[in-house]
């Protein structure tokens, strides 16, 4: 049953509460006739298709390239709120980078007993290849995506940290361009902080982290190839940063360096922004059957002949078990109190907490510790008895593989449903870039759960995206 056409009222979503700019947005959209609105929405589709802004879904019917649904109603965040999210994200990434440098170095936090040694050294994502390596500026996570949600009108929580190969920034950038194209009148009246300089921030950070002695560092983006789900982003960033987009087969290791084969001979590579998972990065160091990686790359990186961004071994810091420890990391490394809160989390590895989880499956969201993309979760309130029983068995079989969190009353945002405007749950992913300094472009990727009542925002499971506006406080209605 489709939702009835409704005259939009602000605020009709918690996210819109108290933000005058939403009224302006809705008023402007209201002035469009249904035909004009439909024409503009259709032109959005054409824009994305013509540009090839797609993602690949493996095994999906209807071809491999799909558009990510884009909602033309932007998410608006006040400057004050954004400053909080920005400071909190930067704080978090500084602590996580310090943690990574520490656990692959002198392990002070383990020695201090803040985190049990077994929790880190016994984590299957703890990477021996990263031990003892000192990286430029101590940066392991050059690009971090911190997923945050607002609960109620004021509280921001971190859902998860993404320190391996966080994706989605290209959609953040192109969503802005798309919306400027089809709704230019919105931007004439509402000053939105620009995000277009993100590729410059990123390139500078990557160059900052080049090996010593690389005067004019050659930066490349390493992609698995054109059939990878995020290939558009790899190509997009290479184009925006004016760097080469390489595959593993373009690179060779020789004389302690990495080289790429060009039409005019070999050229040295100094920084590799890799969008290949650790497992496939180097068949000599990890999976021997990988055809995507570069044999010998990890050893060159260990010896300082090349910088790999993000560094190998970051998975230990962004899995859901380590997530619990981040507030303690902030206190330990930065001597600060966390600005952003963690979602209360139960560890199934702990007998008491596991018992609570098993008794309250219908009320909780249970996730795999090493999972991602929204797959493998149990959303208790939306599950059947059979699904909960199956999940119970999985937990009992391997408790340390699972954590659980209460369902949050995630904020919602006005979203176009096709027939009217209705609230839909959203999250936010700011991208933190770490080089000599740590920075965030004043925007983020807003992911929206398009199905009514759904909490799953991942694009691979039917989620969409919105343009994210950071506006100055006190903008007139």
């Amino acid at each position: 049953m489709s939702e009835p056409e409704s005259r939009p009222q602000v605020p009709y979503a918690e996210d819109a509460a108290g933000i005058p700019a939403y009224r302006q947005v809705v008023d402007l959209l209201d002035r469009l006739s249904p035909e004009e609105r439909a024409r503009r929405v259709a032109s959005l589709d054409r824009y994305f298709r013509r540009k090839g802004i797609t993602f690949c879904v493996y095994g999906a019917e209807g071809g491999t390239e799909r558009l990510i649904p884009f909602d033309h109603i932007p998410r608006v965040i006040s400057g004050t709120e954004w400053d909080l999210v920005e400071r909190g994200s930067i704080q978090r990434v500084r602590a996580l980078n310090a943690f990574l440098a520490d656990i692959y170095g002198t392990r002070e936090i383990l020695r201090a007993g803040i985190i049990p040694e077994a929790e880190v050294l016994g984590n299957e994502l703890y990477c021996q290849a990263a031990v003892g390596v000192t990286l430029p500026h101590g940066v392991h996570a050059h690009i971090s995506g911190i997923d945050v949600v607002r609960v109620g009108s004021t509280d921001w929580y971190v859902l998860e940290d993404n320190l391996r190969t966080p994706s989605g920034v290209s959609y953040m950038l192109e969503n802005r361009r798309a919306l400027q194209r089809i709704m230019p009148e919105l931007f004439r009246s509402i000053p939105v902080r620009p995000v277009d300089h993100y590729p410059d921030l990123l390139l500078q950070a990557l160059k900052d982290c080049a090996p010593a002695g690389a005067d004019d560092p050659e930066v490349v983006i390493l992609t698995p190839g054109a059939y990878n789900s995020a290939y558009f982003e790899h190509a997009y960033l290479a184009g925006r940063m004016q760097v080469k987009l390489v595959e593993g087969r373009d690179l060779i290791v020789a004389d302690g360096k990495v080289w790429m084969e060009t039409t005019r001979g070999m050229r040295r590579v100094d920084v590799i922004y890799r969008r290949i998972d650790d497992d496939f990065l180097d068949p000599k160091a990890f999976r021997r059957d990988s055809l995507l990686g570069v044999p010998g790359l990890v050893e060159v990186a260990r010896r300082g002949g090349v910088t790999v961004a993000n560094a190998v071994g970051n998975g230990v810091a962004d899995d859901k078990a380590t997530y619990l420890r981040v507030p303690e990391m902030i206190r330990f490394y930065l001597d600060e109190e966390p600005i952003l809160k963690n979602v209360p989390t139960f560890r199934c590895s702990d007998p008491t907490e596991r018992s609570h989880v098993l008794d309250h499956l219908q009320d909780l969201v249970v996730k795999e510790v090493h999972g991602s993309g929204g797959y493998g979760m149990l959303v208790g309130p939306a599950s059947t008895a059979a699904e909960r029983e199956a999940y119970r068995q999985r937990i009992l079989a391997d408790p340390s593989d699972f954590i659980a969190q209460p369902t949050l009353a995630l904020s919602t945002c006005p979203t176009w449903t096709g027939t009217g405007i209705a609230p839909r749950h959203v999250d936010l992913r700011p991208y933190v870039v770490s080089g000599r300094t740590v920075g965030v472009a004043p925007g983020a990727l807003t992911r929206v759960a398009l199905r009514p009542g759904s909490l799953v925002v991942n694009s691979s499971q039917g989620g969409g995206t919105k343009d994210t506006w950071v506006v100055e406080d006190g903008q007139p209605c």
Partner: protein
Amino acid sequence: MLKRLAGNCFWMGRYLERAENIARTLGVVERLAHAPEHHRDPGPLWTETLMMCSDENQFRELGHHPTAGSVLEWCFLDRANQSSVLNCLGAARDNARTARHLLTNDSWEALNGAWIEMQGWHDRVAVEAHGGWEDACAWATRQCLLVRGAFLELPRDQLPQVITMGQMIERLAFTATVLQMSPITRSGEIECWPGSPLQRRTEAALAAAGGIDTFGRGDRGGVCPAEVVNFLLGDPVSPRSLLVCSRAIVECIVGLTDGESVHHARSLPAARDLVDRVCAAYEGRVEIVAAMAGIVTSIFGLSGIIARDHFEPASAA
């Protein structure tokens, strides 16, 4: 630029040129088929077209018989035909996608937009809705020209050189094939009557090779077989002549390698040899039809040498 991407862009150029050549030829033949000499038995005309634009054996093995409709659909739309206009555009687009970050937005969107539109063309019903075969072929030709035009805005580095190399290889091969197969090359006539079947075939050969507008602008007299053959062989200002195309390939190889012989040890001599063959045919030192067959074989050999010299990883050697 990366060798792999240079190879992909080379093939993008080849597929785009191939799509344009085939689309243009189909449109030309569709018009020519209206002439009275083809009314009673259009089969030979369409068989010749099939041989020029496609793999005739594959066509027949699939149980098809050459008629206007079957050849048009096979050469324009059929996904089983690797060289159909649809598949060529798709292959060009796939190669372009791997080098998306090197192309300008305009050139990518022009190619991608054409490909997207053709995805909706499943059969002749879609073509009819577009105005018929001649309109569809003209549209496809125009799209390829637009993409080529957008390539003019690429930075003047190696990228346009590899694309041009691919285009010239394909153009050379196609024009040589037209000369090899067209009855005008054997006729040797230096005159033909206006409105005669021979004149129509001569104009059609010129149009299929993409030279009809350029020919008409020069002070060349009328459209007659000998003039047209000479024009397609060696006119120094026509972008379609074999001489201009083969020389362009030599220039591209030199430009690609900045003159360093270690990078073009085999491809440059092979390209120069091709220029010599074209000159020999143009100067009448060799029989043209046989020369064209040899040139087509040389061209594909040269393509392989270029790939080995410039696009294949040295580490694979």
